[in-house]
């Protein structure tokens, strides 16, 4: 295999990616493995954050990747491939979620006022993050639980912006909302997560966290 397609992580990665995409479009479908490999984690992570179930997330991630291959000709070079891919994943996950809930009565609309002010629940000091924090499984679990407890509209924005690193504009486009809504929801998501995590992560891990007790400050 040519050297240029083997080093997507290099500074020339963007160029290599374009080259790969061109060759895949020209019929070298096997190269799709190379193209997708750096994004496997992100694809799964995006699906999981929306579906909150590992099996569903894996299936949605696979389906999204297949769709990306099928529609690779529709990818426009002016966008980042990763953004395009994540948009497909998000659409796939959202579609599944809609199907899953199609038979259910529409839940009561979240009455949180998007435009309203958000008051932090407490002011626990959380200045330092131990470097090894994420190596601890229970920490990752706490983070996952906190994220899962957010309302869907906050979770989606947070996942795309802060976990998938899409821009505000890309997040807005993916979710079909305005950039103003993205900013408002992002603010709330971040503050809510801080409220959920700061008392534990900032100090004593054995202290009872609010979300562990099933209560939410909002």
């Amino acid at each position, binding site marked *: 295999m040519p050297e240029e397609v083997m080093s997507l992580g290099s500074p020339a990665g963007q160029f290599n990616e374009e080259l790969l995409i061109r060759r895949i479009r020209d019929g070298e479908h096997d190269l799709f493995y190379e193209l997708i490999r750096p994004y496997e984690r992100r694809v799964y992570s995006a699906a999981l954050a929306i579906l909150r179930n*590992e099996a569903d997330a894996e299936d949605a991630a696979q389906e999204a990747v297949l769709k990306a291959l099928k529609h690779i000709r529709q990818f426009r070079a002016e966008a980042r491939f990763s953004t395009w891919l994540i948009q497909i994943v998000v659409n796939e996950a959202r579609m599944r979620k809609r199907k899953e809930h199609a038979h259910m009565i529409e839940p009561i609309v979240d009455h949180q006022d998007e435009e309203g002010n958000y008051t932090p629940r407490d002011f626990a000091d959380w200045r330092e993050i131990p470097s090894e*924090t994420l190596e601890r499984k229970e920490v*990752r679990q706490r983070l996952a639980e906190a994220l899962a407890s957010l309302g869907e509209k906050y979770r989606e924005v947070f996942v795309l912006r802060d976990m998938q690193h899409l821009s505000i504009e890309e997040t807005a486009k993916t979710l079909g909302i305005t950039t103003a809504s993205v900013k408002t929801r992002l603010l709330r998501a971040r503050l809510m997560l*801080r409220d959920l995590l700061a008392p534990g992560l900032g100090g004593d891990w054995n202290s009872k966290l609010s979300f562990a007790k099933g209560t939410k400050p909002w």
Partner: protein
Amino acid sequence: MVVNCEQVWREISNYLEGDIEPNLRAAIEEHFRGCKHCTAVLDGTRNVIQLYGDERMVEVPLGFSHRLHRRLEENMASGRRSFLGWMVAAAAAILVAGGFEMGRSSVFSHPELRSEHAQPGSGVPPNMMVVVSEEGKTFHVPGCPFIHDKARLRTIAAREAIREGYAPCVRCMRKYLSASLISPSASADSEAQVSGSGNPNLRIKRG
């Protein structure tokens, strides 16, 4: 400009994004210097972004990559199979169409006619005995006055005559020919030949 805590909380996300007016930024930074609570909120929010932005945050299930690649492989293989199937179907269609076309060609159903303007004798009973001459281009019922070379006649079945490229005489075989292709004047000429099928105009040619 002076800002209070509520204003700081409202802008804290934009502040971390760097999406804020310089004056407001300066005012917020001034506020942080004197407000421990807001500093705690700022630090915590920054930590949230940092922690969740780390890819280690999500554990990918064991074997995820392998299963994904296997599914891709299956998909590509099935794509190749359908492409192959499509190719086979296309080749079969070409063969059928080709066969049909060949069937229509002179070699198979209507041998190359000795006369380029003759009408094929497709309506003639195949077992009917007809007469042909070596030099002639048409076959006739025995005794037809329009036989060209009476010295070298052969009597053969109509199917054989057709196979050898003879065309029916428009006079003696008239009743077997397509009526639409026959003009009254043609019947007067023993070797009158009909031009290409579908063309109602006749070209008269001596055999």
